[in-house]
């Protein structure tokens, strides 16, 4: 193509020719095509509405989804809000137990300590998420319980066991979704305390069932591995105790 734009020779034999040879027709369309393509790219870059398949729009924590659910957010923020949601539920449950009169003596004293642990977990997550992901902190949730949950020791222990084992399952399953090692260490620091709670409560229900209870699906398995659940499965269970509808579909998902 460059030949078409080159000045011809300046000797006398070629002097009469036009200074520039006209661009061949085919070459002209090559230029035109390239220009059109470049214009299209510029326009695409300017468009705010153009879909971007490389980086999908991931929800912010505490945003409202199309169906009216509250999103826990994406990436590590999603994992942190997921933990915060579960800790809110646990803290509320134990606060009610600790303030009640069904349990007594050493048992009540221990449940009051567990209530503090869960409240501290809840407050920690609120502070950490607010600092690290301003504006994405999950709102305060409204727990709800089946009728009679707080009426008997049996019901309290059964609910506590369900919550603690669910918490262990959740943290164990969420670890691999975390990208930031510092957050992973925090999750590890909390899950072992939840496991201590779970063991204590299981022993109250049936002495010696701290790890296994004869049901491989609900306790440590034959390989010595503890419970694990995906966020989807955990939230399906937890949702029954939470008034607001939660959406955890982007937990751990990164752009």
């Amino acid at each position, binding site marked *: 193509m460059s030949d078409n734009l080159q000045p011809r020779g300046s000797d006398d034999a070629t002097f009469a020719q036009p200074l520039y040879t006209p661009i061949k027709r085919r070459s002209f369309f090559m230029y035109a095509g390239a220009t059109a393509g470049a214009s299209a790219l510029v326009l695409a870059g300017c468009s705010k509405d153009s879909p971007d398949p490389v980086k999908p729009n991931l929800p912010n924590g505490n945003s409202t989804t199309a169906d009216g659910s509250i999103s826990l957010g994406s990436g590590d923020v999603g994992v942190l809000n997921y933990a915060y949601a579960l800790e809110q539920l646990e803290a509320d449950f134990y606060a009610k137990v600790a303030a009640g009169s069904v349990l007594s003596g050493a048992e009540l004293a221990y449940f009051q300590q567990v209530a503090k642990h869960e409240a501290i977990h809840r*407050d920690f997550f609120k502070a*950490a998420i607010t600092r690290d992901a301003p504006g994405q902190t999950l709102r305060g949730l409204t727990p709800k319980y089946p009728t009679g949950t707080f009426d008997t020791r049996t019901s309290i222990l059964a609910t506590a066991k369900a919550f603690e084992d669910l918490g262990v399952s959740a943290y164990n399953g969420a670890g691999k979704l975390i990208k930031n090692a*510092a957050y992973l260490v925090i999750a590890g*620091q909390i*899950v072992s305390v939840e496991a201590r709670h*779970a063991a204590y409560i299981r022993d109250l229900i049936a002495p010696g069932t701290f790890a296994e209870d004869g049901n491989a699906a609900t306790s*440590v398995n034959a390989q010595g591995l*503890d419970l694990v659940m995906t966020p989807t499965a955990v939230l399906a269970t937890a949702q029954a105790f939470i008034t607001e509808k939660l959406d955890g579909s982007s937990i751990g998902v990164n752009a």
Partner: protein
Amino acid sequence: MNFFNIINQLAEVDPDVMGRLDTRRSVFNSLTTLGKRTALAAGPALLASFFTKAYAGTTAGDPKEVFNYALSLELLEADFYKKMVASQYFSGQSAAYQGAINQILKNENAHVALLQAVVSGIGGTPVTGNAFSTTVFNGLGSFAAQLEVAQLLEDTGVRAYKGRAGDLLGIADVTIGGTAYNPLETALRIHSVEARHAAHIRTMRGQTPWITGSGDKDSQPNYAGAIPESNTTQSGVSLIAANAITPNTTYSAADAAASFDEILTPTEVGALVTPLKQ
């Protein structure tokens, strides 16, 4: 103690830091260039703090090394409980006590078998030996004395696993016997079982299932370390002064310490368990 702020500060000078911190190895790979930029912003103290807290004790990021580290602890524990069951004091215990020790021994043996398979599965050679010292064991003159050591072993194990979790971030699944195991998830699932064991043994000994700081063994070095179990600040958040978060609420140091377990580095764990090995 401020994990999040450190990461945030790193992110300010290196926007890609989140993506490049997936594994400890990548941290070292990026350290040269990252260090130059970070040095201007925060100085070497920040990096030192970062590695101490987020990657504590990670002298090697090889998952084979991490799982052999775990295996060596499980071998020690399994042999200890095997010796407990075989000891002269065992038969006189209640069915509940015997059942608990047998349950824990069963779990530890399962951990040994699984970890041996994981190490082999990722191309390593499983460590062997690591028996519990017969001399030390024979010096334990009662079932109660044995339980004291059991508590220290379990609580130390919980802290040891926690200290290596960051090394396993992003490590690919391992297939064993046709089943895929995520290395990090597997380690976490063993870690929480150790916590269940610790809680039960502490209860058998009349201690709180969690570590409040007022237990009869809480002054042992197993509960100390660069970050002691008495720590009440997590990621720069004071857990006691949480009244700033939930108005008019304060928490005791005991509750704050008990609500988070702490890590131990491999060096710290080595100092604690080496005297117990055969």
